């Protein structure tokens, strides 16, 4: 990996860096779609938390296209894809004792999701 040019260091520290990529990939989901997070157990880095695997959620927003952390972590390229904000109800994740008013929103890559049957 190349070092950052000196003139880029201060702006990056001030504003952070985005991994957003050009919007070239088709979106498999749209807001309102019901999805199931895949029950997968990759041996490499992943941004899919275990507690949502196999759980049903609703796509609330399409955030756009981003570089895929799971492959970038291992030098396997950007593999750009859509990232969605997915809402899971607290009861779906934690059972009937959880508050019916609570939910968790998680940003999830396209490849983590299947359409709910």
């Amino acid at each position, binding site marked *: *990996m*190349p*070092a*950052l040019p000196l003139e880029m*260091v201060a702006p*990056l*520290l001030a504003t952070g860096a985005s991994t957003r990529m050009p919007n070239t990939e088709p979106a498999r989901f749209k807001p309102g779609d019901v999805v199931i997070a895949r029950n997968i*157990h*990759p*041996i*490499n*880095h*992943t941004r899919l*938390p*275990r*507690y949502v695997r196999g759980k049903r959620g609703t796509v609330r927003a399409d955030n756009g296209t981003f570089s895929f*952390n*799971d492959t*970038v*972590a*291992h*030098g396997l390229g950007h593999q750009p894809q859509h990232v969605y904000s997915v809402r899971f109800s607290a009861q779906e*994740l*934690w059972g009937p004792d959880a508050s019916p008013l609570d939910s968790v929103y998680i940003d999830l890559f396209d490849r983590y999701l299947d359409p709910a049957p």
Partner: protein
Amino acid sequence: MNGVHDMGGLQGFGPIDREAQERVFALFFGGFAGGFYNIDMFRAEIERMPGHEYLRSSYYEHWLHAIEALLIQGGAVTHAELQARIAELQAAGRKEPH
């Protein structure tokens, strides 16, 4: 990977230790700007910590572990050099306690 880092839903852990944040953040950025790792390589390296060490160390010690490992992998420093410097600082600390 399924490791102890994936703690969502686990209970009984205290708040994050923020003491070492500034120093470790500065170290992180040095290695990042130097081209030795990206954020995803950094996170993956933390996740490869042995589970018992991960649970025994603080949040920013996880960062330090990954920074050291990636700087060694990238050839910026050797394990022996790192150990020698730690010993040097420990000896200096014994002479001038603060």
